[in-house]
């Protein structure tokens, strides 16, 4: 056992800068440094048991908090779908406008909130992580603009169209106009080009 290391403990290699930051955090939390480190390591094991890395878990939490801050709420999807199904046949255009406007508002939120990163990439990440009913979300950027694709096995046709309106609203605010789109129930492909006015 290395000199100075008590029984039941082992030395772990750690970068010096993190050591001092962690020591500061432990001080603020009013905990001994060793128990602060032990707690962090315990969570590593726990995260591993959940088949996730700590980074993934903290990223997810950060994005969820962003959604909360952006005024999103958690609600039973069955109830929401029920309301949309009722209203859609008679108020299709109104609902599409509401979703589009909501997207525009969300785009503004991203412009204000995400200043040091690419807002389109961040939006893609948010959709991937926090849109629980979507699979295979992809925002592909190329010289001509952005192509969005997603698949969902649970989205109704009405919800597919409304999601498209929401995405169009967000992208409009981020400076892109939709130039092409194709959709089926639960399947979306949208092409965007940078707006000329930008």
């Amino acid at each position: 056992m290395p000199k100075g290391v008590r029984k039941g403990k082992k030395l772990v290699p750690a970068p010096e800068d993190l050591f001092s930051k962690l020591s500061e955090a432990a001080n603020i939390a009013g905990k001994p440094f060793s128990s602060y480190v032990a707690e962090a390591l315990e969570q590593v094991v726990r995260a591993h048991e959940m088949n996730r890395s700590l980074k993934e878990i903290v990223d997810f939490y950060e994005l969820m908090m962003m959604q909360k801050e952006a005024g999103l709420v958690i609600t039973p999807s069955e109830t929401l779908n029920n309301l949309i199904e009722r209203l859609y046949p008679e108020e299709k255009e109104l609902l599409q406008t509401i979703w589009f406007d909501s997207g525009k508002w969300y785009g503004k939120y991203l412009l204000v909130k995400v200043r040091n990163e690419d807002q389109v990439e961040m939006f893609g990440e948010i959709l991937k992580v926090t849109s629980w009913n979507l699979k295979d979300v992809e925002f592909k950027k190329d010289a001509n603009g952005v192509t969005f694709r997603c698949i969902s096995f649970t989205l109704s046709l009405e919800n597919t169209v409304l999601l498209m309106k929401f995405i169009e609203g967000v992208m409009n605010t981020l400076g892109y106009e939709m130039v092409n789109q194709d959709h089926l129930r639960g399947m979306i492909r949208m092409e965007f080009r940078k707006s000329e006015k930008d």
Partner: protein
Amino acid sequence: MAAREDLVDKASEIARERGTLYDYVNETLQEAIRAKSLGLILKEIIDERWILEAAKDAGFTLVSERLWFDIVERVYQHWGKRWMKELWYETGKWYGRYYGDLDKFRDVMKKIMWDLSEFEISSENGILIVRCISPKFSHSYSDLFSKFLEGALNVFGYDFIGGDVLKGVINLKFRESKGD
């Protein structure tokens, strides 16, 4: 840096699958500091993740609050409150059955209903009291949410005996069903 032997051994084992122990410890400490900057400790963040993951599995979804309340109000005006109340009541019953336990239901609601500033279930002289406050709820939404709670509480064996529902304030009283 010295740390508990059993934890270091477990972390080393995990690290072996992913790279070096140094990189792994580095990543862990960075995330611990990041969690601190979010005002939490790692344990709380992982707990939260678990709850949100469970909410996803239970059929909850994220929706813009303004959009949600707007749609609810429109359908409420258009289709009448009877149909809506029935829908919320049935949804409450579904979640009551899903969670199967009053304490679990209360804990989940507290965590995932971001729009509630207060949510308490207490017992006084054999009467169960459910109180919740949300400054964002309209009168009609408060009415609907109270039906959701009533549906869930019925499943847990409680009958609604009275209470008040005002805009953003719900105060409901229940008594244990005689049949149970």
